[in-house]
Each structure stands twice: as structure tokens, then as C-alpha cells.
């Protein structure tokens, strides 16, 4: 499907590196995800205490989204932004942690704060809450990144008038392996929105 829409901004987070529109914002060596993502939040001047209460998947998705939205979008005016996210591991990283907390009957203290993140689409909710988005949203679980599906679904949302912009993302986190590729699709921009470009940016 060919459309007249464009990818206006994109963000990638992987291997202790945060890139926005191809520019490296932060790169760290020999640190685990919690330390990296904390530094990444400071690098984009994120001031949102609830960020530190999120699980790893939500931190990843939230930071990827904020890295794009924070400085590029006036959310008081442009708030008809749909959210379309996907990954492979769903919320398994947190599911496992929660399971561990309830597996020992002698030490049975299930954490409500962990439990609330045992669904993958919670990360989309966190982005919506922060930015007061009351828009279309979806979270898909696929075996791998599907550029064509993301492109077609996004085009449908835009062309049917269900959204003026769509924030798309692949946010994968399991056992300290992670990758986030988040991008904003809208009318303006110079980068074409099609499956080939999306796949190229994902692979880059």
C-alpha cells in the first residue's frame, strides 16, 4: 500500500544506546538495563516519577515514545495520535518475575505493583496517561517485526480519519535483551512511510 504519509521522527533503543532520528543521544558500555534506562531518562530530561515504578517493557516503550513526543509535538494542540505497538515476548519478562513471587507458598507475597504490568498493552496505557491521549491504540504480539502489517494498519488509521498521527513501535524486552524502534507517522516529513523504509530503519 502506498500512502502520502511520512515518518517524521524515529527513535531506537538497543545495546545501551539511545538514538533519535539517527543521532546518538546516549551510549553506555558495560551497564545493565536499569542503569542505562535511568541515564537515558536523564538524557532526554524526563521528569516523571512514575517512570521509575514501571516494569522494563513499559520503561522501554515510554522512553522511546517520550524521546519523540517531548520536543516535537505540542500535545495541547496535536493530541489525535493513535498508538500501534507490537513485540514478540509480550509481557513475559514481568510475567516470570510475578510467577517467581508466588511460587513459594512459604514466602508468598505477590506484588500488586508487579502484577499490574503482566499485560503487554500496559506500556501503551502509560504513554496515553502521560500525554493525555484518548485515542485508538493497539498492541500486537508477533513472531517478528512485521513492517508491512505496521504500515498497512497505520495507513488505515490515518486514511479513515481515526487519527491524525500514529506513533508506532516495536518494543521487545526479555531477560535483559531489548530493542525499541518507535516512529511517528504523519502528513508532514521527508521520509516516506512504506514497508521498505520501515524495515530499513528497523534494521539500521
Amino acid at each position, binding site marked *: 500500500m502506498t500512502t502520502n504519509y511520512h515518518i517524521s521522527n524515529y527513535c531506537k533503543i538497543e545495546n545501551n544506546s539511545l538514538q533519535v532520528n539517527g543521532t546518538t543521544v546516549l551510549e553506555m558500555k558495560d551497564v545493565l538495563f536499569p542503569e542505562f534506562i*535511568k541515564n537515558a531518562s536523564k538524557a532526554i530530561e524526563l521528569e516523571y*516519577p512514575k517512570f*521509575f*515504578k514501571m516494569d522494563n517493557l513499559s520503561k522501554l516503550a515510554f522512553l522511546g515514545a517520550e524521546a519523540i513526543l517531548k520536543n516535537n509535538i505540542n500535545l495541547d494542540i496535536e493530541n489525535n495520535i493513535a498508538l500501534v505497538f507490537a513485540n514478540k515476548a509480550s509481557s513475559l519478562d514481568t510475567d516470570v518475575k510475578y510467577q517467581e513471587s508466588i511460587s513459594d507458598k512459604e514466602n508468598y*507475597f*505477590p*506484588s*500488586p*505493583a508487579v502484577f*499490574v504490568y503482566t499485560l503487554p498493552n500496559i506500556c501503551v496505557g502509560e504513554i496515553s496517561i502521560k500525554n493525555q491521549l484518548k485515542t485508538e491504540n493497539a498492541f500486537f504480539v508477533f513472531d517478528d517485526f512485521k513492517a508491512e502489517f505496521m504500515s498497512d494498519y497505520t495507513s488505515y488509521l490515518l486514511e479513515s480519519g481515526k487519527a491524525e498521527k500514529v506513533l508506532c513501535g516495536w518494543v521487545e524486552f526479555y531477560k535483559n535483551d531489548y530493542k525499541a524502534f518507535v516512529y511517528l507517522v504523519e502528513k508532514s516529513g521527508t521520509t516516506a512511510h512504506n514497508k521498505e523504509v520501515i524495515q530499513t530503519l528497523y534494521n539500521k
Partner: protein
Amino acid sequence: MEALKQELKAKIIEALNLEDISIEDINDNDPLFGEGLGLDSIDALELIVLLDKVYGIRLADPKQGKAIFESVETMAKYIEEHRTK
């Protein structure tokens, strides 16, 4: 009591992932919810788990929480009177 309050502040910070907040930032009578630390309903549930896990206190009636979790002062007082470990 003073030692318990200091311990409690540390455990609240750890259990609720209160980033960039130190023990010194929490006054004994600061409201934990609303204007004070700004805790939410999930935090309230975590505090109930904390009471059970660390101090062996099971709240029979969750409605008690409102008074118990008013501040570190009220929490410490309740713990001192009801702790089983």
C-alpha cells in the same frame, strides 16, 4: 520508635521505587498520599504487602489502611503495637 521510623522510610523508598527521594526527604508527619509523597492506589496495596512481609501484620480490614497509612508516624505507631516479627 525513632529507629523504626528510619527503617520504615528506607523500606517505603525501596518497595515503592521512589527514585531521587531519600530518607531525609520524608518527614515523620508528611502525608503519604495526595500532597505529600503523592502515592497512588497501587502503592497503597504495596504498603499492605510490606506490613505483612516485613512486620507480620495482616490487615483484616483494608479500610483501616486510610488511618494507618496517613504518615510514617502513624504507620510506625501501628507497627509497634501490632508487629509479630
